């Protein structure tokens, strides 16, 4: 047992939908030892898969041990690749097939009310995340991955980008802090990422260095679809420089604030009411509005208190934010509902929208509601609120023809 071995993945009594792979180079021809919960139904398939990956890495002598708790193929492949790459030091990849829908780009103006964080090295949490219909799914390579798991997490995140079903959610990745995060880009830019979250942003140079690497990768991989950025402001300096960051590049579509680190930087504690971060949040909203990008609020960490979350979202909406991070699927509907327009707002928006339609049909240049003139930005906001209502299920798509 003192033979040198290389491992990847997770094991333990609570681990499910994952596997732990151990590669032990040796003199005997390749042997695959599989211990799987699903051996009866998928054992042969898993063994063949392991042989294929081993062949790719020209790993012909030694043992591959797999402890499987029902991992899907893209997970098995990521674990096998990470362990075999460590063992062979070969610069080869074993890529799972791309789902057709995972190649599609996302549009700049799409809604980003909810983005659900998923730890980048925990496949179990990824599998069903999309069915909760957040606007975006974030595969997190940064804080949610332990330092010694960063290496293998990149393979898993890459494979998930290609093969996980996202159910229409925007495919997002939070990379590590620049400059370490630049290495993450190799694993995500060529593999269908829609939006990259850049954590702990404090200067436009950081954004520029990320974009330089993205451009380089897009060129070498012939990619012409956009890769959007969402910088995260997590320090006093970041708050001060927020406008500079928000305007650092054209592909920035949104900017978020991360309150855990920000309040620590301020030397205070985060409260539910958020008095301590009022300035920072408001500053980020203002910077975003000035830069014409979406202001996105921090996550709310008490996952058990739905009511406190709802109050938090309402305050956030009042400040001008139009999205929030979620750390548990059960936060998704609460955040979505709360960012959606209220009944009163919606009634008004409908009236304005209908008045605008009527004016258009009659060829009037000016929109009036009763005796009150309506400015174009108000019409635009009404239109947006109606879109949001339709999107969040408050209004049916043909609300206009129903009554």
């Amino acid at each position, binding site marked *: 047992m003192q033979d040198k071995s290389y491992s990847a993945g997770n094991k333990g009594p609570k681990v499910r*939908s994952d596997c732990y792979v151990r590669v032990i180079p040796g003199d005997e021809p390749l042997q695959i030892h599989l211990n799987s919960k*699903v051996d*009866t*139904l998928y054992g042969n398939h898993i063994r063949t898969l392991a042989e294929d990956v081993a062949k790719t890495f020209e790993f012909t002598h030694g043992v591959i041990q797999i402890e499987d708790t029902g991992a*899907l193929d893209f997970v098995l492949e990521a674990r096998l690749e990470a362990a075999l790459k460590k063992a062979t030091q070969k610069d080869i990849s074993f890529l799972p097939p791309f789902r057709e829908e995972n190649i599609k780009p996302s549009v700049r103006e799409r809604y980003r009310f909810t983005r659900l964080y998923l730890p980048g090295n925990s496949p179990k949490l990824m599998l069903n995340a999309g*069915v909760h219909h957040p606007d975006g799914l974030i595969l997190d390579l940064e804080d949610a991955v332990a330092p010694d798991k960063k290496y293998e997490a990149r393979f898993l995140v890459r494979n998930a980008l290609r093969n996980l079903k996202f159910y229409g959610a925007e495919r997002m990745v939070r990379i590590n802090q620049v400059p370490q995060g630049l290495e993450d880009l190799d694993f995500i830019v060529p593999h269908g990422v829609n939006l990259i979250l850049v954590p702990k942003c404090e200067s436009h140079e950081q954004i520029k260095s990320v974009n330089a690497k993205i451009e380089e990768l897009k060129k070498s991989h012939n990619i012409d679809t956009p890769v959007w950025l969402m910088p995260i402001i997590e320090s006093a300096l970041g708050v001060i420089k927020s406008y500079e960051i928000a305007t650092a590049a054209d592909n920035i579509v949104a900017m978020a604030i991360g309150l855990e680190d920000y309040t620590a930087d301020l030397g205070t504690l985060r409260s539910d009411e958020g008095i301590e971060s009022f300035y920072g949040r408001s500053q980020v909203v203002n910077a975003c509005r000035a830069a014409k990008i979406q202001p996105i609020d921090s996550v709310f960490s008490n996952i058990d208190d739905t009511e406190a979350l709802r109050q938090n979202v309402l305050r956030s909406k009042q400040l001008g934010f139009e999205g929030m991070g979620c750390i548990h*699927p*059960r936060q998704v509907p609460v955040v979505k509902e709360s960012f959606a327009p209220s009944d009163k707002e919606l009634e008004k928006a409908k009236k304005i929208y209908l008045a605008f339609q009527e004016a258009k049909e009659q060829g009037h240049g000016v929109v009036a509601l009763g005796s009150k003139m309506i400015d174009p930005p108000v019409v635009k906001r009404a239109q947006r609120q109606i879109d949001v209502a339709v999107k969040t299920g408050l209004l049916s798509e043909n609300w206009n023809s129903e009554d």
Partner: protein
Amino acid sequence: MAKKYDKLTRNAAGRIVPEEINGEKHIPFKGVGKHKPTGHKYAPPNRSCIDYPDDGDKRQPSLKEALVKSGLKDGMTISTHHHFRNGDVIANQVFDIAAELGVKDLRWFPSASFPCHEPMIDHMENGVINRIEGSMNGPLGRYASEGNMKGTGVLRSHGGRYQAVQDGEVHIDIAVIAAPAADAFGNANGVNGEAACGLLGFALADAQYADRVIVVTDNLVDFPCIPWQINGNLVDFTVEVDKVGIPEKIVSGTTRITKSPDRLRIADLTARFCDAAGIIKDGFSFQSGAGGTSLAVGEFFADMMRKRKIKARFIRAGSNKYPVKMLEEGLADYILDGQTFDLEGVRSMRENPNHVNTSPFTSYNYHGKGNFASMVDVVMLGATEVDVNFNANVVTHSDGYMLHGIGGWQNCLFARTTILPVPLFRDRIPVIRDEVTTLCGPGELIDVIVTERGIAVNPNRKDLIEKVQASGLPLKSIEELKQEAEDICGVPEQPKLEDEIVGVVKWVDGTIIDAIRKVKK
């Protein structure tokens, strides 16, 4: 000795099943509602007061003595009950005594078995027990699935067990009823005492029809033991012991509403489906199990009822604190309870006359003048597998091992609407298959499959489809759901099974719906 099974034939569900099992004749499944019994019910031996003490004291000094006096001998059928679930200590003692007395080839006829009954494996190895007729899970399921049992297992639903006993299909020689409270005459109940478990309904058939009935308790009270859920006039002997069960394992207290977001989504979709289908209305009735997802469905129902100021006429349960809360809040008039899962359930049954104890006779027996299960508006049940024709499996896993009992599952399929809220796959294994490994419930009785990725309605239920069509719920065909699972998980191989039959599954009318094959090791 009789052959384990013989005379294979194809039944109406297309399954190859034996007509002869352990030397007894059985009828292959003919289709739902196709088989009717004839003649009269089985009757127990007639007895006289001459043989019983006038002072009503039927106590024996020990369980062993009671068993010997009951005439325990080779080849008998001994029944026990699962009111204490995994905290039962009496069933093992019965067979330990049989072993001590050198008795062989017994048929154990439990209402259900639990992991605590693992010692029965030794009794099967040493020949004391020939076979188990009852659900097998955990270690016993594994043992039987691998073909180690001398006889062939027979699995019945709770209702099917009552039917088999009353029809005389299973003749019980000795019934041992462990009770949390009893008097020396044999009156017994489940609501009082250390080991309070709520009710003793599963022992009703045994008390009525067994040749000999023994009541065992660790809480002997002076006559009369009130209420008498088991009537002492049916009891031959009573025995006082130190302990009938381990209280903390009887009521686990761990049944909680699921926190899993995926399961909550399934529950939410289920509740919304019922709402869209018009089921949630004043005076409706429902049954949902004690699993985390089912409990969540109940809570979603409760929210809807509160908002609309309506209530359910009755909840059929396995009760625990959640339905009890609904009863006490006035969201339901009655709980009709078959088994109680926590102390809140026990307390409520003891204190609240509207929390009523029921039995497989009232709720489930198919050979009777109706039963409660078919009067329930909507029932939520689990399943290990469902096929594209909505047939479902609840006893074996996809790898062929017996791991769950049927419980009241088959009986509940007769509710007006039957919903299976299940995940689309578990640990990579798709729930929806081309064919179920073991057929337990015919698809014609299963109306809706709710998964986290979509809802499939049985095409036979045009009425339901019409009602929910415009609801905005994610409706899919069952083939689409199967396709989606296989797209994510890959197409599974078939389980590796041998031709040898290790058990059969009975339908509610006593016919054989499927056979369980030995697992290849």
